[in-house]
């Protein structure tokens, strides 16, 4: 495959569309991009990886002999992005694309990958729609996943690192190749060996083998299960028979009980005319029971109220006693008052008699008839004493006695409503008695119409019917359960019948499994043999390259590649170089990588970014001399100004170089850089920081960071 055109649009520092024409009139294979840092060398390198594989990664790391891949560089977003900053920030719709056009064995190849924002301003790659279109020869255009698969046919992803070589990462390869590395270049080698699809074929066979084995195991298991199921089936058939017998027995039981119930119902039907009377009797009995309970309550209430009845009776006469005693007490009180006042009067009269001096107490004149006056006082005294004696003799009971007696009587006094309450409770009890009596009469009346025998028979039949109904319900339940058991047993029987069916081991599967096993062994042997062959080829090829690249081929005679693809430099003494220079090591690494690439058989260009890192002048030259001589394969280097001088390189490798370009920023030019002009008559305006060509009027701003691609005249 030979690249003819690379078209970059709004990627990295490439603003707008840049068409890099790589067609060459001669058969030279060397291509070079020269630039200072940040002018877009690595961008072109990454643009091609993105175009082919849909991602461009940062440089990876080797930690403890294992490769840790770098992170994927986003198309848009914060930090370092793939899209051109100006296009991302200023364009109405952010869009970026890379197109590769090449000539392959099957005709023209065209790969176009583009990313378009789905929103006004895409902030993440999720908001970018990436599309891929591939055309190979005369085949129709394919897109998306199919397009990616089409790329795999001419540029396998697994071999990417043999074609996109990062000089900055050479040390990582070196570390992996050294004898103390854990896995050496296992991944790389496996990728190379995977090309004939042997490994994939082996994986497919493994899968087939596993599937077949699983099927055979399953059949074996089924066979075992089948044998076991046959035994279980016989047992289950016995269980089934027992369950069926149980159902049959339960069915008979139910029929018997239902028959008995029908008999009972028939008998009850014969006594149908008695039914209402019996019902009434039942109802009456219920009413009587209730009434009896109420009557007991009423009787108890009457008893409770009756405890006060004697007071009501006594008081009907004792109230007169109470009134009389009250009157006696009043009299006694009055008497007592008069007695006391009479006593005072007697004392006064007695005093008057004792102190009498014949002087009138009113006018204080001497009295004429003293004796008469004295006699009058004595009569008054006698009269008072007689009254006092009469009063004292008339008192039968002292007021204190009367108070006690009244108190005793008071205890017998009933409350005013007692009589009414007692009579009410009596009436209530009587009413209840009458009601009960009436109910009893009704009962007797009905009883007289229904013979005891009929009554007893109806009662018995009723009870029997109840019992039989319960029994029927129970038997029905049992029958249902038994039928359910039969259903379950039947299901189990069917399952066992299925399991015990004609299962036999598939002979074809066994045969196929055997063949696959043999094939696997063959493939494993082939891979081992191929690996050994590849190792031998890589060793041979790498040694040839190394001899060409190193500047002391007589001392460093080749490269030893061990079975794990770890490498060492052979010296002329038949030993290995213990501490090779960094340049020599880089040469060894490049040699091995190129050897692997050659062994892979892939016909594709090689891209080498910062190729001459850690190489001395002589090795740098040897490197280009070797790679640019390779027939057929394009070899593109992306070199910064410190690695290779443009004029010198062009001069020294004339005839090897097909094309070369410089990548610059506008500020790198102090004369007109347009190929058609190249005038040195320019004017610089320091205020606007712009140059303007006085010949062609072309202007360029020294502030902008947009790469200018200029082809170097060879």
């Amino acid at each position, binding site marked *: 495959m030979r690249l003819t055109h690379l078209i970059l649009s709004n990627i990295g520092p490439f603003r707008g569309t840049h068409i890099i024409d790589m067609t060459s009139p001669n058969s030279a294979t060397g291509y070079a991009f020269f630039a200072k840092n940040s002018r877009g060398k690595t961008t072109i390198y990454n643009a091609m990886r993105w175009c082919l594989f849909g991602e461009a990664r940062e440089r990876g790391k080797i930690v403890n002999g294992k490769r840790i891949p770098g992170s994927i560089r986003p198309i848009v977003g914060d930090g370092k992005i793939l899209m051109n900053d100006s296009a991302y920030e200023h364009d109405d719709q952010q869009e970026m694309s890379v197109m590769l056009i090449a000539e392959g064995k099957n005709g023209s190849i065209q790969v176009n990958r583009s990313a378009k924002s789905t929103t006004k301003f895409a902030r993440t790659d999720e908001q970018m729609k990436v599309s891929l279109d591939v055309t190979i020869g005369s085949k129709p255009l394919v897109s998306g996943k199919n397009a990616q698969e089409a790329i795999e046919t001419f540029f396998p992803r697994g071999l990417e690192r043999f074609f996109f070589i990062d000089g900055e990462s050479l040390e990582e390869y070196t570390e992996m190749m050294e004898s103390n590395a854990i896995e050496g270049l296992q991944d790389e080698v496996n990728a190379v060996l995977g090309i004939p699809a042997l490994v994939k074929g082996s994986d497919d066979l493994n899968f087939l083998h596993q599937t077949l084995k699983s099927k055979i195991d399953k059949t074996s298991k089924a066979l075992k299960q089948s044998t076991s199921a046959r035994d279980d089936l016989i047992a289950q058939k016995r269980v089934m028979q027992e369950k069926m017998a149980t159902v049959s027995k339960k069915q008979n039981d139910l029929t018997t009980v239902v028959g008995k119930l029908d008999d009972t119902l028939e008998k009850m039907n014969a006594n149908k005319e008695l039914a209402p009377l019996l019902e009434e009797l039942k109802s009456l009995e219920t009413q009587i029971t209730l009434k009896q309970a109420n*009557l007991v309550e009423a*009787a108890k209430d009457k*008893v409770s109220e009756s405890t006060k*009845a004697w007071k009501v009776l*006594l008081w009907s006469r004792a109230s007169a006693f109470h009134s009389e005693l009250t009157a006696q007490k009043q009299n006694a009180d009055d008497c007592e008052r008069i007695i006391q006042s009479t006593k005072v009067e007697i004392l006064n009269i007695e005093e008057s008699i004792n102190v009498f001096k014949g002087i009138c107490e009113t006018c204080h004149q001497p009295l004429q008839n003293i004796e008469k006056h004295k006699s009058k006082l004595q009569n008054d005294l006698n009269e008072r004493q007689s009254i006092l004696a009469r009063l004292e003799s008339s008192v039968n009971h002292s007021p204190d006695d009367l108070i006690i007696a009244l108190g*005793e009587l008071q205890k017998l006094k009933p409350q005013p409503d007692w009589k009414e309450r007692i*009579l009410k409770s*009596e009436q209530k009890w009587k009413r209840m008695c009458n009601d009960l009596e009436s109910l009893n009469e009704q009962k007797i009346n009905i009883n007289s119409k229904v013979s005891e025998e009929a009554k007893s028979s109806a009662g018995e039949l009723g009870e029997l019917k109840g019992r039989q109904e319960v029994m029927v319900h129970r038997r029905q339940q049992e029958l249902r359960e038994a039928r359910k058991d039969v259903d379950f047993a039947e299901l189990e029987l069917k399952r066992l019948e299925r399991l015990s069916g004609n299962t036999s081991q598939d002979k074809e599967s066994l045969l196929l499994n055997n063949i696959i096993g043999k094939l696997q062994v063959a493939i494993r042997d082939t891979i081992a043999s191929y690996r050994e062959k590849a190792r031998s080829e890589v060793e041979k090829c790498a040694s040839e390259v190394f001899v060409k690249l190193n500047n002391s081929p007589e001392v460093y005679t080749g490269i030893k590649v061990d079975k794990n693809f770890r490498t060492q430099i052979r010296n002329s003494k038949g030993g290995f170089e213990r501490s090779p220079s960094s340049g020599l090591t880089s040469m060894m690494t490049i040699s091995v990588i190129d050897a692997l690439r050659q062994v892979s058989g892939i016909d594709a260009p090689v891209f080498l970014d910062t190729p001459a890192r850690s190489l001395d002048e002589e090795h740098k030259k040897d490197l280009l001399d070797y790679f640019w001589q390779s027939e057929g394969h394009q070899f593109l280097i992306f070199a910064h100004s410190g690695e290779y001088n443009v004029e010198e390189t062009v001069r020294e490798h004339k005839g090897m170089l097909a094309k070369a370009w410089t990548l610059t920023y506008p500020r790198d030019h102090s004369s007109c850089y347009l190929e058609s002009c190249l005038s040195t008559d320019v004017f610089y305006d320091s205020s606007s920081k712009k140059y303007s060509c006085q010949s062609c009027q072309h202007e360029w701003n020294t502030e902008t960071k947009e790469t200018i691609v200029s082809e170097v005249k060879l």
Partner: protein
Amino acid sequence: MSEKPNPGVAELSLELHNFISQLVFKNDSDALSDRPFETIGYAFRFAFGLGFRSNTRKALTNPRKDIGVRGFRPEDFMTLVEDICIDEKKSLGAVISEYAEHGANEMRNHLSEGGSLLQLLNEST
């Protein structure tokens, strides 16, 4: 003041004692019968009440049976019968018993005529 009468014992002739004993409500099965008294003491009080109300006494016939001090205390009714006791030189229990004898007899007659005991509260009141 004259001397207080003796308390004596409340009693009834055996026949009437038996009668009023039957008027005591003993259990639920007595609900349908006219047995309005909680104890024999209440039944005796009722009979005494009836006799006293009509101020009629009846001499007790032998044999007799007492009510029991726990069921009836004659002293509680001294105010009502003291004078009679003094006049007739009888104990309180004796006079009260005569009143009750009459009352119980009246109760028996009333019941035999189909009446109910508590109606007696009304009839003579």
